[in-house]
């Protein structure tokens, strides 16, 4: 499906399932930066903010900013 033509703007409120469905390349960014979006029950079922809180991220906003920049630079092939 990819993200062609979409304006990337992920926030802490964005559902992780939506991120994985719309921007699968975000999975790579997540792993590079210390968090997995997908697990053995599927994608994390609530918001990115919830996930980063569980993972005890010191600066969730910086993670989100970096993710949005990554997605602009790395559109899904």
């Amino acid at each position, binding site marked *: 499906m990819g993200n062609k033509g979409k304006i990337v703007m992920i926030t802490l409120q964005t559902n992780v399932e939506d991120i994985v469905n719309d921007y*699968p390349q975000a*999975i*790579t960014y*997540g792993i*590079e930066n210390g968090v997995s*979006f997908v697990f053995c*029950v599927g*994608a994390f*079922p*609530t918001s990115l903010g919830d996930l980063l809180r569980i993972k005890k991220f010191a600066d969730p906003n910086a993670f989100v900013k970096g993710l949005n920049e990554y997605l602009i630079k790395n559109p899904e092939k």
Partner: protein
Amino acid sequence: MKMPKPMDESYKLFIDGKWVNGKEGKTFKSFCPSNGELLAVCAEAGKEDVDKAVKAAWKAFETWKDVSPQERSGLLLKIADLIDANKEKLAMVETLDNGKPIRETMNVDVPLASDHFRYFAGVIRAEEGQAVMIDKDTLSIILREPIGVVGQIIPWNFPLLMAAWKIAPALAAGDTVVIKPSSATPLSLLEMAKLFEKVLPPGVVNVITGAGSTTGQYLLDHPDLRKLAFTGSTEVGYSIADAAAKKLIPATLELGGKSANIYFPDCPWKKAIEGVLMGILFNQGQVCCAGSRVFLHEDIYDKFLKETIAEFKKVKVGLPWEKDTTMGSQVNDAQLKKILAYVEVAKKEGATVACGGVKMTGKGTESGCFMTPSILSDVKAKMRVAQEEIFGPVVCFIKFKEEAEVIRMANDSEYGLGGAVWTKDINRAFRVARAIETGRMWVNNYNNLPAHAPFGGYKKSGIGRETHKMMLEHYTQKKNIFISLSEEKVGFY
């Protein structure tokens, strides 16, 4: 061999013994991860559907709780027989939906699933309460009683077997169930529900399908559940525990792992090497207790690594419905992306890709999510790839010198699910097995998961256990009947 297609084109929800469309009319698709082909369209349960399922389960509970152990046992045995009678179909559906090879679904997933129903059919016939004389005039009786309606959520790595792990003990205990499979692999449970339909009263088992963020969340949020049971990741486990806490109900959680597979120089050599493959390549490494950290004594490190690489290269990765395939496809592209990203993390951390480390290409695997069997050598215990759950066929080789050192490194993990020690020295085997902080330690074997051995985690790997007759404790509550046998006044007032 052309891909078979034994499943239906579409599936509805199984609620109150009937197959029904979702109230909102929403559906989702299930694809074969080995070639991307559409397998089936499934109904997505909305809030009203989940509510309907919970209500049906409560209605069924009113009579199911009083069905005698003899009769319940008989019904569980019938389910086991039906699973066996439909073994080929269930195995192939699972293989196509999940990507795991047919030799595994035929020899592990399906037979272990039927055995689970058979085991709990036996266990409840031998269950007894307790009675004690508190003093000569006072009798205390302890009886187990069912809890009520249980909400269960299971993962995509062993869809049929995890459903059996959840459903069999709950039914044996006299509970009724609303269960949700992962939306990545709903088909084998839906097929098993067709078998339940032939045996169980309506509403005893209800199967709802859909996404975790919608259907799963509606189930977690439902106020009328008496227990939650979940197998999945530690991260999602927090949400389940939170949902249970808000309702003040119990939850059993079987969560993630990063298990240590420890090898001493006196290990049974050939079997020990096979143990690495059993630990990390079984089910494409998508196992919560996968032996993903191999700790090797320095005296055998180089030889063991070299011979294990040779064995990894012999593994036939291919289309999972072909009988000679030993490793199939990862469950989906998202999982493959995650695994490949971890290989890159490993390289950046200074590990060496000793074999594999890339997506499998060729041999009919072009359209699927196939990973090569992979070994990362020169890994240090503190590296991220040695601490985080990769959930794929990627194993870390870590060198150690002393027994105390390897125990320390193995325990340096937030997880505590499984592990193994390989040695012919019984004293060392017992010492190390006791010292490792996990719920399961194998000695000179790996990934054996029979019904009658308890399985579950220490630390962040879970709460409670799965399998074994102790599951009846998780699915029942204790009733104490305290009887005075005297008619004399107490005399306190």
